[in-house]
């Protein structure tokens, strides 16, 4: 929703990475953007905010991938992160049942706050540890289809499925944007949309910190 086509014809998307700590969010995005896994060999200073430029069917797309702190104590800060994001990548560890449960709470929250404006992708990471799997593929896939999310299995270590996952997400976001454009041609101002989002917030969720522009006073 926040995509602003600047003078150049680039579509900007904001994608947040959500998921518990140690599920491999950072590895995932580093693998995608830098194609590197071993963190010791990576030149980038930070892996929390990364840009990836894509060209899909002639459309230039710029993905801004926002990493989020996965610790439980920062869970309440989620709304600040995913505010006005176009897509969310929810990562869980296939060897960790808890991380999958955590995903469910994220999905619930996201759907409440952002409705269907946001494209969700649920990602089971660490498929290289298949032998320790604790989250069955069927369970995850049925859940994903139930909440209208895509489901992928990836391995940041083996570089499996990551490219595909981001590509599919981007395509879906492009579709969503096209839908929105046809739907509300009248609402050209993104700010009105921004407000709508915040209205939803006020209704349903513990108020995110008052620094939201429309939230306070």
């Amino acid at each position: 929703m926040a995509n602003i086509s600047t003078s150049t014809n680039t579509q900007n998307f904001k994608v947040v990475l959500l998921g518990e700590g140690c599920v491999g969010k950072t590895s995932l995005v580093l693998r995608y953007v830098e194609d590197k896994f071993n963190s010791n060999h990576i030149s980038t200073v930070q892996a929390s905010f990364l840009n990836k430029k894509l060209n899909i069917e002639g459309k230039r797309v710029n993905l801004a991938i926002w990493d989020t702190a996965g610790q439980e104590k920062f869970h309440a800060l989620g709304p600040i992160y995913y505010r006005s994001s176009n897509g969310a990548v929810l990562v869980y560890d296939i060897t960790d049942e808890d991380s999958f449960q955590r995903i469910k709470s994220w999905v619930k929250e996201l759907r409440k706050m952002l409705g269907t404006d946001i494209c969700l992708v649920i990602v089971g990471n660490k498929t290289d540890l298949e032998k320790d799997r604790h989250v069955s593929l069927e369970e995850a896939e049925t859940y994903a289809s139930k909440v209208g999310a895509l489901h992928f299995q990836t391995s940041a270590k083996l570089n499996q499925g990551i490219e595909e996952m981001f590509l599919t997400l981007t395509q879906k976001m492009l579709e969503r944007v096209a839908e929105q454009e046809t739907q509300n041609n009248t609402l050209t101002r993104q700010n009105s949309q921004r407000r709508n989002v915040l209205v939803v917030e006020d209704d349903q969720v513990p108020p995110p910190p008052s620094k939201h522009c429309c939230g306070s006073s």
Partner: protein
Amino acid sequence: MYATKQPTLRIKQADLKCKNGCGFFGNAEWEGYCSKCYRDYMQKQRERNTSQEKAEHSKARIPGFSKFEEKKRQQIDKKNKYLKNFTPVFRKSSSAKDSGKSERHHELRHSNPEMEKLTAEYITKYGVWGEHVRKDFLKCVNSVYTKILIDIDNKPIEDIAELIQKYYNMFSDRLNRNSVYEEVISDVRDQMLDFFEKFVMIGLYSVLFCPHTTNDEEKDLAIQDRIRKLSWVTAHHLGCCISETSMEVRDLVYTAITDLLGIDSVKAPQEKLACVVRCCRSIMEVLQHCQGAPVSADEFLPALIFIVLKGNPARLKSNIHYVTRFCNDSRLMQGEGGYYFTNLCCAVSFIENLTAESLSMTEEEFKAYMTGVITPVSAWESALVACESMHQLCEHLSLLKNLSERTDAVQKGTGELKENINKFKNEITKKVSSVLAKTPLIIKPRKTLIDFDLHESTNDNLPPPIIPIIKARPLEEIEDGNHNLATTNLFPFENTGNADLQSQNEQQQPAFTNFYEQNLQLQSIGLTSDKQKSTLQLNITPCVPDLQTTELSFDNQSLNLDEQQSGFLELSNVNYDIDFSDLSADNSVAEELTPEKHKSPSFTPDPFSPIGSSCNIAQTPLLPSSAPLLPTTNTAPESTSNPNQTNDFFLPAAEADRVETILDQTEEMCTANLPTPLKPTTSQYSGFSKQGWQIPSIPCNTGDYSSLNMSQSQAWVPNSNVNVTNPNKNNQNNDEFEKQE
């Protein structure tokens, strides 16, 4: 406006004067009197009090006093009223009247030095795009100014923010569509949009930053107070790994804090955002220093919270609100600045809602910290307090802690190393002892030597080389093919060797027979023709090194062999020596034996046994020479098929070979000690005479032992003896043959 102001001020000034109207300034402490009048007043009051006590009935004065008090209260009320009016004069003067608004606008446009600076900046940056661009730009800016200044007091700040965002978008559209900006390239257009934002926001900063219609200021104070209360929170509490002692890290942390504090000192939202970005980049560097890997949000957010807690930036909330409201949305939603700003918002939100749980400590502990019962000291804290010595103290403390930890680690490591060394030592000794137990080889060879010596003494005289006798009448004796068979029979009696010895005996015997045969050949050659003999010698010479090598191989293997075996080996050496001597000697006779031996299966060398190989080596060189010789002396069919009939020489040799093999086996069955030495002698012997049985058995043993006992130099002697003795035996044999014949 100005006129209205003046009287209020004058009144106030008058109000400040002494109540007595003496012209001096009064003071509230002195109840509105000047110092002199106050003294008088106090004195009067004191007198009045005493007079009251003295004369309670003098009531006429009291109403006067109350009247005075009433008057005073009225004055105070009046004063308050003035003051109330007074402040709005500064704050809201513009809102009331149009004249005030215009004045403010005027003020913003012209009297503000920053506006002049901005205009100058515009000219240097975008002046090249022409006058009409500049005019349009300024027109847009002015329209925003007027609109905002009209609305500022009538609308909530959120509406104003939306208005500003609208203006940004409008200007963006204008940049892209209006013909005025046609010539401006797209990159510069983006820059101009940013500059428009900056221009507008700096111009309206005083109005829009922390506007009076909001409670931003209160929130600022609240968060500031909150952070101050949380000053005890350390990096450890937040679970982020910032090492306090590293100078580099410390510098980076201070840089980050400085950048964060810088937010308040710049005016444009984008500049504030830039400060946040700089701060966060420093934090990233800090974290990379501390953990060495790229920083993910999991580590970054706690660190940012830590920096915010330590920095406690002024007017934090106001700044955050200001940026969220008036920064161009596109920048805030995306891009690095947006990301870091979002994180800052998260950090502030976290600090506001911080509980014991979020610091992973108990409620009691948290309360104790909050109420100051526990007061931890950290290097950051003291540094920020700017007490250098305390800072150093804290740093040294943490340094010492680190050092002691490292010492512990080193000590632990040394302990482990010691343990490992001991373990390794034990293992090695164990292994070595086990290996020693398995293969106690070294002692045995010595024993064998001693044994041989013992044997030597007894058997010295026996060795049976019979060659010289053969020389005398080779053809006649050999003609009797059956003699060999007789000799073969002899061996079984003699042999009582161990089963182990069989293989070697087998091999050795053929070798010896070979030698013997060679000798025979040489001798025969010598008899037949000098030329052939010479060729043989030539052929033989190359054999010498081969023999030596075989000897060496024996030596190597002798370690593993039993006493007797080793004895055999040495015997074989001896035999070789004998061969040489034989070769040198010009004895003839046995030449025809060689080819058969060559062909006989028993001669096939045993590749595994050193002796067999030695035999081969000894033979092979000889054979070529012998092979050509055979046809000359003997017919080919004789050598191959029926040696007995055709050629006397062949038969005995062939038979002898077969016999030898059989004999060897039998020998092994018999006495263990005897067989090795026997072979050479027996073989030689067998080839020549039937009768030799008993004789060869004895001499063989003797010859071998003698060789064993002697050192090499000495060994030669027995060999020569053997050669010498053999002829005697041969003679005897021959005699016997003769008798039989």
